């Protein structure tokens, strides 16, 4: 049973340059036991999705269509009051450079307490104390340090506090938006292991957003690859990363540098940035695609099935079917 079900969601930003369609007609489902990763580069819309799932879209953003189904509610229809009951309690977020989000003049445990008490004001002091200890144990912060101030913590510890705050009310869904991008590689490794372990232990739904495909691959079981506001390929991580079909996914994988893949690096020739003002129903990658035809620029891309779970978005079926190596 899907925890989260998004259908045909489109979100636009009203700017002086016109309506920027940051998210264009996307659909996907999230199951509890299977963390879902969103990969893509700047401007692909993945952060906008995260914001929409928290009801934190800025004032000039509008939901242009579609539904977000979560626990018998359509999140696109919630007003601010209703969001307050959901945000933090049912759906929580760990966001990028979150260490800057900690209040420098409040002790760390007080900030987590605040997160708990906001949603469960009647909690008894005993239960509260127990919960705090549980949470800090879960994120592996020594009990002796929970009364410190944020500036006394290292970057990794601050990120752990943010994770603790997100978990404070036992949310059903956690959205992690580039949670380790601002951290050192060694710390990133620890945090990722913790996120995986916590997700398993608490069986929460997890959406993991990142531009780093290896990070996403290490945490998530299912992947959505995004470009210019559209999902261009989705499937299990084995399918998407071992058998990429969409030209963009291949470019992304070809650009990825790991310690032992120098020979398989393929340098893409992608010069243009995606045009977010395009009408719905256009392929946004066409401008950079080396295999597209003139038909691609005019046609509507459609979902092409590669397997039951693996699909790619393209105007031209032959590109997708023939693209495996």
């Amino acid at each position: 049973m899907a925890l989260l079900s998004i259908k045909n969601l489109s979100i636009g930003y009203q700017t002086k340059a016109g309506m920027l369609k940051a998210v264009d007609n996307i659909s996907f489902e999230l199951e509890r036991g299977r963390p879902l990763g969103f990969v893509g580069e700047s401007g692909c819309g993945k952060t906008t999705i995260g914001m929409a799932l928290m009801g934190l879209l800025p004032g000039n953003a509008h939901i242009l269509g579609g539904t977000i189904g979560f626990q018998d509610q359509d999140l696109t229809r919630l007003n601010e009051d209703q969001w307050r009951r959901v945000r933090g309690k049912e759906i929580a977020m760990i966001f990028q450079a979150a260490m800057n989000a900690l209040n420098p003049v409040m002790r760390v445990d007080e900030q987590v307490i605040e997160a708990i008490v906001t949603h469960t004001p009647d909690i008894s002091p005993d239960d509260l104390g127990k919960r705090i200890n549980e949470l800090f144990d879960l994120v592996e912060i020594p009990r002796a340090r929970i009364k410190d101030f944020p500036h006394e913590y290292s970057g990794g510890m601050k990120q752990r506090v943010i994770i603790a705050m997100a978990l404070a009310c036992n949310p059903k869904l956690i959205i992690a938006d580039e949670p380790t991008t601002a951290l050192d590689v060694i710390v990133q490794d620890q945090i990722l292991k913790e996120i995986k372990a916590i997700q398993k232990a608490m069986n929460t739904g997890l959406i993991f957003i990142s531009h780093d495909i290896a990070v996403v691959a290490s945490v998530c079981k299912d992947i959505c690859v995004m470009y210019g506001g559209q999902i261009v390929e989705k499937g299990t991580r084995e399918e998407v990363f071992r058998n990429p079909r969409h030209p963009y996914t291949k470019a992304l994988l070809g650009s990825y540098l790991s310690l032992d893949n120098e020979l398989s690096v393929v340098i893409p020739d992608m010069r243009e940035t995606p045009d977010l003002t395009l009408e719905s129903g256009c392929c946004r990658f066409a401008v950079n695609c080396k295999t597209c035809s003139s038909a691609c620029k005019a046609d509507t891309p459609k979902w092409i099935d590669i397997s039951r779970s693996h699909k790619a978005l393209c105007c031209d079926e032959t590109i997708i079917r023939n693209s495996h190596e």
Partner: protein
Amino acid sequence: MSNPKKYPLIEMKAVTKEYSPRTRFFSKCQNKVLALNSIDFSIEKGEIFGLVGQSGSGKTTCGRLLVRLEEPTSGSICLNGSPVNKLKGVGLKTYRSKVQMIFQDPYQSLNPHLSIAETILEPLVVNGLGTAATRREKVLHTLEIVGLSPADDFYDRYPHQLSGGQRQRVAIARAIVLDPDFIVADEPTSMLDATIAIQLFQLLTQIRKRFDMAFLFITHNLAAANYLCDRIAVIHEGHIVEVNTANNIIQHPEHPYTKRLIQVQPGFDFNG
């Protein structure tokens, strides 16, 4: 300028950099901060040398010392065997024409009020090179080299009209317009997408090949250093812990810190 065989192009000898609270304020320490502790390494002509470290390791400080944005507290920096850290005036200007820098943030390293042409012309103007006509030619030529084509098109544009990747190409153009011997590239792609970054790496490799330019490639990403560099130095808390060819660093790491760095690189292993 000839490079006598016995001297490397760039040499850092026992370079130490200390910050005391008056010059730079670090909130944790009341006393002096040792950003670099007796650093030694050398770079040969035409070599791409990687300096890999995490934040706070001192790698950026190294780069800044090499371009004389800051001075070492002790130790010396040599270009072709002659020490440069005490140069002033004309000597400093000559040094500057041979050693340039590419900065990390493409959104901050270009003056928003200057056109692309003015930004790239500046090093030429400041060093009194050429006439207005020859300078214009040089800038157009350099724009073509860095892939901003057609050059005429980009000549009069302003930074805000360019994407991050394009801006960084302008920064590279500015760095190479003086035909320097050595360029310090301080995390030139860490603020760019992977697909753009790899294209810039290709550009840097092409430039090295074409002009026999040496690079110091400063990064926190060991895999990127492995891809781009001939040799790599690993820096941790102000110390160089290991220097070796890129291949050896990855295949036969010796220092425990290097081994740890290699261990934690996320890979596509799909377990768990």
